[in-house]
Structure formats: C-alpha cells, structure tokens
C-alpha cells in the first residue's frame, strides 16, 4: 500500500475518534448549506423582491442576470454569494486538522518513530495534507448536493434554479474547491512543521482563508464578480500554486530541527 495512503488512513482512524473534531468538520457545512436554502425559502416568491430591477444590482453583476427579472436577479445575487462560501468550506474545515498534524505528533512524541521509518518527507506531508483535505472536500460536495436539491425544490424560478447549477458553480465547487483545500492544507502543514505550539500553528494557518474572504467582500461590495473566465483562471493558477506549495513544504521540512530543537 502506498505510504501516503497509509498515513491518510492512520490519521483518519485517529482524528475521527475525537467527536469534537467530527463536530468541527460537520458544523460549518451544515450552517453554510442551510443558510442559502433559508434565504431561497424566505424569498421563494420573487414578487417579494418585485421592487428590484437590474438597475439596482451592482453594474458588473447585472450583466450576469441576462434575461432574469429584477426580482430573480436579486435572488440570484443573494444566493450566489454562497458560492464563495462553498469554496471557503474546503479551506476552512481542514485547517484545524492540518495545522495540528505535524506539531501535534511532535508534542505527543509520536513523530520520531514515524521519521525513523523509510517514509519520505513528501509522502509524509502529502499524507497529512490529504487526510485533512479529503473529508473537507467530501462534506463540501455533500453540502452542495443538499443545496442543489433544496434549491430545485425551494426556488420557484426555473431561471434562478438553473443558474445555481450552471458550469460556473460546478467548476467552483468540484474543481476550484478541492484545489483551494489542497492549498490551505499545504500551508497549514507547512506552518505545523515550523511552529512549535499547536495553538500558534492553528492561528497562523487560519490566515490562509483571508484571500477568499477578501474575494467574498469584494464581490458583495461590487468590486468584481466571479464569472466563468475568472474561475477557470483561478483553477489554472491553483494547480500551479498547489504544486509549488507542496514542493516548498517538503523543502523546508527540517527533520533534524523538528527532532532536536522543539521542546
């Protein structure tokens, strides 16, 4: 069996015995899936938003609405903000697990026996990263599946329901989401291998979600809007960034420093 996968399986067996970790993995998707559905339910009649026209939308967004009515466009605008939150999920969920991965093993003194095995640094870090990223991506996809079904049921407007499942969303959730997860956990594992306290590692690792939060507020304030071109560029850029981050994390992982300098 591939050693990376051996590490993934061990980390899952260990981490998911902790109910609090299970809770942290499940809580955010539950909230972020329920919220847009509640909004769709609350605005299920577009006549509730009938007073709105495309002119009320941020200029860049109105062009995305095309043939939608003003109310539909507003409903789409509100709910589409959650696309970024669905992209945020695979970043935010695994950071806690990933940031603890190396420094946690050091503090419980389980790291030295692992480093004494023939496992390579890349296999170790990739295993740690995947162990954190895969559950986050899976729960994000599950959350999105629930959202997609719920949106069909709750949105009376076929226009809005169709737009919520268009290629832009599908690329965002199924391609960019996992790539963002890998980026986040790579940074978190890197921080974890350099920090000497799990709390410091977690706090520093959480900073990785800041760019996406900035994008969220940028879109709300109308500074820019994520369209298909931008999302494809993001995906391409993330492939490069992820490869670079994993290579860099492997490069800066100092076995000797970890074993001899950390207390």
């Amino acid at each position, binding site marked *: 069996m591939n050693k990376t996968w051996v590490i993934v399986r061990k980390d899952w067996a*260990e981490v998911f015995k902790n109910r609090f970790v299970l809770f942290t993995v499940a809580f955010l998707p539950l909230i972020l899936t329920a919220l847009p559905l509640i909004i769709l339910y609350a605005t299920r009649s577009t006549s509730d938003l009938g007073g709105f026209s495309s002119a009320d939308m941020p200029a860049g967004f109105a062009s995305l609405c095309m043939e939608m009515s003003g109310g539909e466009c507003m409903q789409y605008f509100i709910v589409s903000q959650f696309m970024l939150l669905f992209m945020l999920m695979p970043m935010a969920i695994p950071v806690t697990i990933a940031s603890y991965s190396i420094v946690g093993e050091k503090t419980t003194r389980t790291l030295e026996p692992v480093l004494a095995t*023939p496992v390579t640094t890349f296999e170790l870090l990739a295993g740690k990263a995947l162990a954190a990223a895969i559950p986050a991506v899976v729960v994000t996809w599950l959350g999105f599946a629930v959202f997609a079904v719920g949106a069909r049921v709750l949105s009376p407007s076929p226009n809005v329901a169709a737009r919520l499942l268009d290629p832009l969303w599908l690329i965002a959730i199924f391609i960019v989401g996992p790539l963002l997860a890998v980026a986040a956990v790579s940074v978190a594992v890197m921080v974890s291998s350099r920090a000497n306290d799990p709390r410091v590692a977690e706090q520093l690792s959480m900073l990785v979600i800041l760019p996406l939060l900035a994008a969220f507020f940028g879109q709300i304030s109308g500074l820019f809007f994520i369209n298909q071109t931008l999302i494809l560029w993001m995906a391409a850029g993330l492939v490069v960034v992820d490869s670079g981050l994993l290579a860099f994390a492997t490069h800066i992982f100092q076995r*000797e420093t970890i074993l001899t300098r950390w207390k």
Partner: protein
Amino acid sequence: MIQTEDLTKRFGDILAVDRLTLSVEAGEVFGFLGPNGAGKTTTIRLLTALIAPTSGNAKVAGCKVGQEDGKIRRRVGILTESPGLYDRLSAERNLDFFARLYEVDDVDGQIERYLRMLGLWDRRHEEAGIFSRGMRQKLAIARALLHEPQVLFLDEPTSGLDPEAARLVRDFIGGLKREGRTIFICTHNLDEADRLCDRIAIINTRLLALDTPSALRRQLYERTVVFHLRQAEPRFVHRLQTLSFVRSVREMDNKLVVAIDDPEKHNPTIIRTLVEAGADIQFVGELRRTLEDVYLRLVGMEDGETN
C-alpha cells in the same frame, strides 16, 4: 554491523558527540552508557539516520549514514526514549500503521507474532492510551521489531518502569540476545547493562572507555580478596606484606582486604600463611566491583579533567 569513525555532531556551538570511533559486531549486545547530555540519544539518532553528522563517517547494516539513509531506516529498528504510541488507536492498529510504513510482507502475521511474544495479543483491540507504562514499552518494542531489523536500537528501554515491568522488558531483551540479534542499548541502568551487554562503551560527549564489563572492571580496579577472620591482628597484615605477589593489605573490621593479581594462584599461599600465623579464617571471597563503580570512576575522572 555498526562502524563509526570520528563521528561528530555539533548543534551550533554545542558539541554533542565528539569524534566517536567504535564498531559493533553482528549478534553483539552493545551497551552505551553516559550521564545526561553525554550524547547517547544524539548518537542513536545519527546511527538511525534521523539526523546528519557534522563530520566523520558511520556505516550501519552495510549502509553509509548520510548517503543511504532510506536503506538504513529499512534495516534498523528503534525504540525511542518515549514510546510514542497513538493513544486513540488500538495496539493492533498502532502496529499495523508501522508495519505498512516499513513495507512488511506479512503484516498480520508479524503483528500476531510479536503481540503474542510480548503477551499483548489478548489486548490487541484495546486503545494504547489505557495501557500501563510497561505494556506501552512492550508495544513500542514490538513496533521496533515488526520489520525484522538487522540492528535494534533501544534508547532507555526500562526507564521509568516499575521493577516488575522493567524485568519483563529486560527478560525480553535477553531473549532477543539469545536469538543472536544485534542490539545497541542506551541505558542508565548499569546493572542491566552489566547483565545484558557483551561490550560497553562509556561516553561523555567523547568515548571514555570501551570493553567487556569484566575487562572494564579489571582495567580500573585491582582484583581484591577479602579474608574474614575471627580476630584480625596487625601481625597478620605484616606477614602478608612480606609476600611478593601481594600488592596491598588493609585491615578492616576483622577483615583483611588483599589486592593481588591472580587470586586463583595465590589464595592458597595466603591462606596457609595466615593459618601458620595463627589466624582463624571464617570466609574468603572476592570483592566484586560493580559496573557502577567503573562508570562513576570514569565519569568522575572525566569531570575532574574538564574542571
């Protein structure tokens, strides 16, 4: 099986291991003694390819440290200072993880073999976190043996264990010795080293002595025979001092403490001399120096030199 030549490790300005040169033969149980901070754990980490030497060379199981580290890690087993077990995983799951990292062919078979050998088979499904210290140590030893390493490194194998658990672990190491395994033991327990080890190295950053326990005792101390008398008198001492092979004689609480080179040859002469002088001999015995005496003397001499 292990050869080092001028092996040196520095951490910044701190010299942890200084030009260590030694060799350990296949099938040998080699003890590594020294005070805290003497460089014992650092040496084990160097020889198991966990850290790189600053200078010097070392070969372990036929592989050069620093050049064939992956091969070394495959060929050696290590019991680290702390057992380092995953507390939330069962004993079996702990071993399964390491067996797969070591690419063991028969994972289940090896796990069963060592859990049975160490008396943990019936508790294989229990979490390691609830195990006693002795059981944890045994599980960690099983982990170090799963891939049948050519050399086994044990760092303080009985440290912190109660006497019963320590004896269990010691007996198990004794069993491994009888199987002909090459074992490198770091320990503070001098009695343990004396009983288990074929040869012993005493270090305090640099190598102070290396030999068999009995040879180390001989190097530092003359052989001494104690004659228990009913009543010791100064004339007995004077008579013994006239014998050419007697190096020294001390009278102490009706005992004569006699230093000689070859007690087996000269004891009958001494006994005859004492009886002729009118002494009533009750017992005769050799004063055995412990390894602790040797260790404390060597480390004390080293500290004296340093200061």
